[in-house]
């Protein structure tokens, strides 16, 4: 049995409606999907399961109150992105009707009809095999880009690299725009990101990288899912300041990633010295490539 997953799941049971707890007590799952009027669906190590529990509107209302601690205002910024983070770094995504502001931007959700609960867990040591290829002679990490499709394990791998680099004595700063790397709850990392790591939680990447450079004097900057022009400018700023950058990008392979002009620009200028490509071929975190990038101009 996966002890970590078991412990994490037990900690989440208290949020669920009373009658569900007994039935779901022994469940091992990465993901639980709850939809109004439909049966619960979970995804665990053994694959997907459809449960004999049908969620009602009252259940959804209970869960929203429990997950938000009856304080929707406290998660206003997160709800604009459609999720909130729980103690332990677990992620709750919501489906419902979007509320728009006068500029047409989402300012929240109402009439919530679906909930996706994703269990956060670190895979300590998942970067062990890769680390020697990622560090220079002084033990500092090369500028690194981790590429993988969704659910491919890139954030998990990045977290473990950050943890090991930090525990190795480097000052690491994580700019965690969507609270996925450190899983912060009320500003405190809920997942192990290393002894000497500072986290800027919920902070837009580009702005956060510049803030970190000015305020926290990091040796290594870590951020997730780069791709916008401002991200590239912030990364250049970090490189000019002599800071090592570890980042991730969505994509099945390097060709797909470099279709985005911003990332293509970074690759062509060989700003990333190491690339890791992951896939789901043999489960999340399957390493397809590690090494210096090879890209034709």
């Amino acid at each position, binding site marked *: 049995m996966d002890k970590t997953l078991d412990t994490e799941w037990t900690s989440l049971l208290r949020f669920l409606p009373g009658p569900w707890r007994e039935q779901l007590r022994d469940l091992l799952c990465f993901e639980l999907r709850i939809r109004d009027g439909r049966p619960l669906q979970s995804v665990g190590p053994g694959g997907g399961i459809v449960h004999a529990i049908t969620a009602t509107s009252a259940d959804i209302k209970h869960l929203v*109150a429990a997950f938000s601690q009856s*304080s929707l*205002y406290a998660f206003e910024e997160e709800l604009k992105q459609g999720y909130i983070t729980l103690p332990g770094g677990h992620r709750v995504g919501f489906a419902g009707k979007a509320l728009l502001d006068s500029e047409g931007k989402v300012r929240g959700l109402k009439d919530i009809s679906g909930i996706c609960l994703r269990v956060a867990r670190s895979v300590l040591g998942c970067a062990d095999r890769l680390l020697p290829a990622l560090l220079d002679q002084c033990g500092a990490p090369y500028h690194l880009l981790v590429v993988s499709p969704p659910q491919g394990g890139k954030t998990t791998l990045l977290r473990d690299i950050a943890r090991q680099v930090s525990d190795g004595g480097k000052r690491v700063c994580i700019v965690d725009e969507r609270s996925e790397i450190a899983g912060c709850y009320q500003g405190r990392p809920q997942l192990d990101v290393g002894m000497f790591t500072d986290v800027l939680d919920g902070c837009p990447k580009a702005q956060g990288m510049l803030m970190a450079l000015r305020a926290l004097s990091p040796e290594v900057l870590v951020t997730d899912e780069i791709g916008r022009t401002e991200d590239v400018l912030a990364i250049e700023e970090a490189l000019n300041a002599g800071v090592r950058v570890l980042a991730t990008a969505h994509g099945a392979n390097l060709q797909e990633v470099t279709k985005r002009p911003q990332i293509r620009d970074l690759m062509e200028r060989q700003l990333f010295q190491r690339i890791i490509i992951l896939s789901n071929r043999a489960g999340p975190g399957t390493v397809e490539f590690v090494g210096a990038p090879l890209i034709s101009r």
Partner: protein
Amino acid sequence: MWSLVLSGACFGLILYASTMVGLIIAKSYRDRPRQLQSLRTGIEMLVTEIVYAATPLSVALENVSQSQAKPVAEFFALTGRGIAEFRPVRQSWATGLAYLQTSSALLWADLEALRLLGEVLGVSNREDQERHLLLACRRLEALYVNAVEEAARNERMWQFLGILIGVVVVIVIL
């Protein structure tokens, strides 16, 4: 001889009881403005906790309770504990109000002004929460002004009225 002592004791008891009743009523007139003031200060602190610090309700209520005196402190603490135990806000708020009803000098109208807040607390964004909290503050302020006037009119009167009623009862019996 014994009957004289017994009737003396009875009259003493009547005087003591009526004086105490008068003092208790006078105290409730004195306590009500103080408790309303404390509630208003608590709600104002809640505005800071919710609007500026975005602190989750259970923690915000616990923080507010630590800065107030009983019974208002206990009202906030009870409500906060209920929410922390995943009970609905409305239910936790009602538990807190039920405590105030039995342990404070507040009147039905005072509690009613608070009851409405329990319906909306935590369910909207900060801007909307601020609007409701400030509205509750304004209601409590109006009730406070009224309570101060009533205390000025009735507190001293009840301090004497208690003993006076006792004396009248004793005279009537005699």
